[in-house]
């Protein structure tokens, strides 16, 4: 009882204080200490403060599932390497003119493990009308270190990044499965700051799903896109090929998580250490790719 009256007195005091200060002639809304930020009533849509919509994510999963299981016939190995709780930074090789690996990884982990995966991508998408909005509703975010840190550290989520950036999907078909530079190692730094492991993933199949034959750099710089590809799909299927993948067999291998023995939340980490780790992780993915390709009998049947 005592605690109750104390609570009551405190509440009365706070109300008095707030009314003596309130000038604007609108009713005072009592916030209430247990107010939950997520359950704001009066909302008209289910778009959360990140811009994602659970209903649209569910719809997209339903539409994408046949493509995942029937078209690409995705097979995973080493899924046990992905932590079942807490943040982790997933890092994979990036390929295909319109990257087919991102949705495969995100959908795969969500269906196999029941954990959402948030992909960080080049902010070019955000500038394209409709596409940018859809992308953000489905959980896509611009690749900004603050975004990654918040998801990994404060929310303990799985975050997917492609350190090659747009250099991966832009590379021509004759250089397939040759990893590009892993940026400037920013992904290692973020994982160190957030104190989470990096989980490397090797993806086989994406390169053949939409091979880039050559690029149109002038058009790309004209429209401000990172690259404009001419793909084998376009030549084979005409206009339909712009958005149709070849049914390449997808195989994914999740490698051992990499943990860093450094204190989190440091402003800067030793550059040489960051670059060494970045290079080591790139090597692991590259070697896993070589190993998987050695054992691949057919592009279409695996």
């Amino acid at each position, binding site marked *: 009882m005592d605690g109750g009256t104390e609570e009551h007195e405190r509440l009365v005091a706070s109300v008095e204080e707030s009314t003596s200060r309130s000038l604007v002639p609108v009713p005072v809304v009592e*916030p209430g200490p247990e107010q939950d930020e997520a359950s704001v009533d009066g909302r*008209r849509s289910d778009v959360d403060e990140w811009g994602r919509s659970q209903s649209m994510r569910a719809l997209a999963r339903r539409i994408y599932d046949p493509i995942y299981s029937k078209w690409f016939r995705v097979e995973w190995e080493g899924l046990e390497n992905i932590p079942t709780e807490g943040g982790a930074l997933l890092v994979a090789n990036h390929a295909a003119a319109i990257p087919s690996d991102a949705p495969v990884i995100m959908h795969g982990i969500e269906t196999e493990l029941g954990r959402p995966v948030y992909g960080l991508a080049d902010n070019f998408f955000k500038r394209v009308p409709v596409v940018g909005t859809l992308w953000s509703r489905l959980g896509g975010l611009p690749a900004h*270190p603050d*975004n990654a840190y918040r998801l990994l550290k404060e929310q303990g989520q799985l975050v997917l990044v492609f350190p090659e950036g747009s250099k991966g999907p832009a590379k021509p078909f004759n250089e397939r499965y040759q990893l590009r530079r892993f940026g400037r190692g920013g992904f290692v730094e973020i994982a160190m700051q957030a104190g989470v492991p990096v989980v490397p993933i090797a993806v086989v199949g994406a390169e053949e799903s939409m091979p880039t034959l050559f690029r149109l750099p002038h058009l790309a710089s004209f429209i401000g896109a990172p690259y404009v590809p001419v793909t084998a799909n376009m030549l084979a299927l005409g206009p339909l090929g712009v958005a149709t993948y070849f049914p390449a067999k997808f195989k994914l291998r999740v490698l051992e998580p990499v943990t860093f023995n450094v204190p989190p939340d440091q402003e800067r980490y030793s550059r040489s250490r960051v670059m060494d780790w970045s290079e080591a992780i790139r090597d692991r993915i590259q070697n896993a790719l070589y190993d998987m390709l050695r054992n691949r009998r057919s592009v279409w049947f695996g």
Partner: protein
Amino acid sequence: MSGTSRRVLVTGLGTFWGGRVAQTLEADPEVEVIVGLDTTEPTVELERTEYVRVDANYSILARIVRAAQIDTIIHTFLVVDPTQMSARAMHEINVIGTMNLFAAASAPASTVRNVVVKSSTIVYGCAASDPVWFKEDTPSSRPARRGVERNLEAVEGYVRDFAQDNPHVNVSMLRFANVIGAELETPLTRALELPLVPSLAGFDPRFQFVHEADVIRSILFVLDHNLAGVFNVAGDGLLPWSEVAQLCGKRTAPLPPIGTSLITGPLAQLGLVDLPEEYLQLLRFGRGVDNSRLKDFGFRYQYNSVQAVEAFIEAVRLRNTIGTGQPTYRYERDVEQFFRHSPAVIRD
């Protein structure tokens, strides 16, 4: 207020911000003197605030600060709505005004010990490469190009310099998100009062709002707690622009996302839609700011973003039905002087 009396200078007394802050301070017995500066007369009724008319860039400020032994400056006179005046006039008020204010505050033997500056989250800019939330120390994604952004950058530069040169002064700077409520008129509130709310086709960015009451409360909170540093002030939660329109009971009118200014230019000329470049960009990419810093010091918002929009639209509905309601206050110099200084008035 930590047991000491205060002598406060409020800039921008004629605006919503300055007027409301001064009104609140009048209720506080520990505030001994309130001097309000502006180029225009106050629009709200004030009991004991002394109004001093100044020119736009406060050339007599140093004398006022010295004569009134001011110890606290609340600088609210910063224009962040570019539709109100020309870029040149805005520069004069924002940049030159702030410069003179801090020159006066840092004069030798200055009595100033607390400074609160109103800034805006516009200073973060708005670009595709922005983070989902800006923290107080996140740099903007690209250099400021437009009027207000550049003004605020210069202003914040003066504030930082002043804080660095005067470590004994508590300097705090509040960056307000889109302010909304019953009274304040901004390009966004004007857009939401149109029959069709302008939007950009294919874009539905997230918006964050802060209610007027929380704006005033946050200024006083910072003052009460002697906080120093930069703080974002924005309600919890972000909602897509289409939902903001829905909450207001409106439909959106999508403008073409390419060559938008070709459409908005003539519309502005006709006086129909007045969306400056800063706000068009906001309709494209939106902006979110992290409000946890001020909350960590114990500040509690009365309104989140949704509640702020609802309070706004309720006030609009009321206004549309019964008109402005309250009799409008007019400042009469002689009347105010009589009540403040005439020996005939009995004061306690």
